[in-house]
């Protein structure tokens, strides 16, 4: 296990390096001068001399590769640069926001799994029942819903019509409820559909018939064997959804004004505060890579036959 984990972690290094290069190139190619952006975002008149001085101070007059290496070395030291808008270190700004985003992501993933898997299993064993048909229509609709529609509907119902929640989400449990629900609805739809399909395909396997023939209880087969075998593809769909979840959290955080990393990224894009955008993309991508790692490791835990390649 340890050896496998170590090998997987070593394989991450080139991927992470490539991501830093991608993010850095993206910012490098951005039209507009960061020095000018910094000076204008801080207000005041910009003279050509001031601009040249600022460019030198920010190291913008050095070649691409030198700046890239410098940037990566700083990241390794935990320094993501300073924000143009308030001169605060980007890393500490983003970390605070990241913890709030993670709280939302973890809560909604957990909530979705807890709700969706029982629904998926039940609809698989009661195929074509009324409940199954209702769930099928609901999950199909949930899959096609733009995430802002879900968030705005929840806001309209709970904040404006019932007035059960304030419009601006507070960072406590009550405030977390609506954003979590908004992120969960599309995930529940995906997970329930996937679980249903997996359990159904497992139920038609010959080993299930064999176990039935030997008189083993339905419940034992379902929970001990079928669910265990379906777990691999359920984990796959959960980890694939994390990609969508990270993207969706930008929209949801913006609507509920949840002070997470997605919200911060959007305000920084509007303010042309590039170091923050750069840092946010980098952190979210790293998060994604780590989730992929955990997914691969969990496959190994479920099924020991899986090894490297």
């Amino acid at each position, binding site marked *: 296990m340890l050896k496998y984990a170590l090998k997987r972690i070593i394989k991450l290094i080139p*991927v992470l390096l*490539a*991501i830093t290069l*991608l*993010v850095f190139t*993206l*910012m490098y*190619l*951005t*039209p507009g001068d960061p020095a000018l952006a910094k000076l204008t975002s801080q207000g005041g008149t910009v003279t050509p001399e001031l601009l040249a001085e600022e460019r030198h101070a920010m190291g913008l007059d050095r070649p691409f590769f030198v700046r890239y290496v410098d940037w990566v070395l700083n990241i390794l030291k935990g320094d993501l640069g300073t924000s143009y808008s308030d001169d605060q270190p980007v890393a500490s700004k983003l970390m605070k926001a990241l913890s709030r985003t993670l709280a939302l992501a973890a809560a909604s993933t957990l909530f979705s799994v807890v709700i969706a898997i029982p629904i998926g299993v039940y609809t698989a064993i009661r195929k074509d029942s009324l409940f199954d048909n209702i769930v099928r229509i609901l999950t*199909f*609709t949930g*899959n*096609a*819903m*733009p*995430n*802002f*529609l879900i968030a*705005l*509907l929840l*806001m*309209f119902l709970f904040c*404006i019509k019932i007035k059960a929640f304030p419009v601006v989400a507070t960072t406590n449990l009550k405030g977390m409820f609506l954003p979590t629900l908004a992120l969960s609805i599309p995930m529940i739809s995906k997970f329930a559909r996937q679980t249903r399909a997996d359990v159904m395909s497992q139920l038609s396997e010959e080993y299930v018939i064999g176990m039935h023939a030997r008189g083993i209880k339905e419940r034992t087969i379902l929970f001990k064997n079928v669910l265990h075998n379906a777990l691999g593809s359920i984990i796959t769909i959960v980890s694939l959804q994390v*990609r*969508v979840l*990270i*993207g*969706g959290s*930008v*929209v949801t955080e*913006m*609507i509920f004004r949840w002070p997470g990393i997605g919200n911060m*990224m*959007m305000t920084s*894009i*509007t303010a042309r505060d590039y170091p923050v*955008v750069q840092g*946010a*993309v980098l952190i*979210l*991508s790293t998060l*994604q*890579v780590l989730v*992929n790692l955990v997914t691969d490791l969990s496959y190994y835990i479920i099924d020991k036959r899986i090894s490297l390649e």
Partner: protein
Amino acid sequence: MKKEKPKLTRSQLKKLKIKRRTQIWGVVVTLVLLLSLIAPYCLPHDPLATNAQAMRQAPSPEHPFGTDNLGRDVLSRLLAGARTSIFATIMLVIISFMIGTFIGVICGYYGGKLDDLVMRFTDILLSVPQLVLAIAVAGMLGGSLVNTMIAIGVTSWTSYARLARSHAMRIRQLPFINACRLTGSSDANIIMHHVVPNLIGPMLVNATMEIGSTMLSIAGLSFLGLGVAPPTPEWGSMVSESRSYLQLAPWAVFAPALAILITVMLFNYFGESVCDLANSKEA
């Protein structure tokens, strides 16, 4: 003796049913496309005309979906925006389909160093959250419909490329390709006349299934204010514009949002039935 009508087996009946369903959804989707093309020419009101006397009016016979903050007719804007929203989606799917298939076929057919390099590159693009990268790209390029399409296109071609590559690798090893080589056909000839025709079917099925999610991505970006610039009507940006007065005029928010939902559902139903049809033909 009277000749008996040949009876259909259960599986044949099922195939016919799937075929009929696909035809029906095909007609529905074609109608939606036609409607979105014709709609901008027969609008009840001018979608850009503001009216200070008719601000945020609730739905009425005059304005079936109400009016927005500037007194513009929501229905007219919805119809005028249909072409932008739907055709931007279709164009993006077609372009990323073509680029992805081209790269995938070349990689799969030739293999080697180039293939390795491109596949590592797609690995990296796939390990970055798609919408986050798209937001960053669109934010850098500035808001416009073309930039939105580029921002999503940066990652969307990869899934087509991977699929096309795996098909091309399989086809390359079939005996008839060797036969072609023996007769002296050039690589370009083999790719165009033998590899591509054999993988285009499953690739197209995949592309139809992607229409819905592509539409959602475009809508998401324009909702974030990274799509078409106002006042041009487009569904995602209509929701974004009217979001701030959700309390006063919910119709201006929910009409375009529901239009997106319904269109995505139609395309998803169509994509799913096309997929079922392809599977039933294979079986």
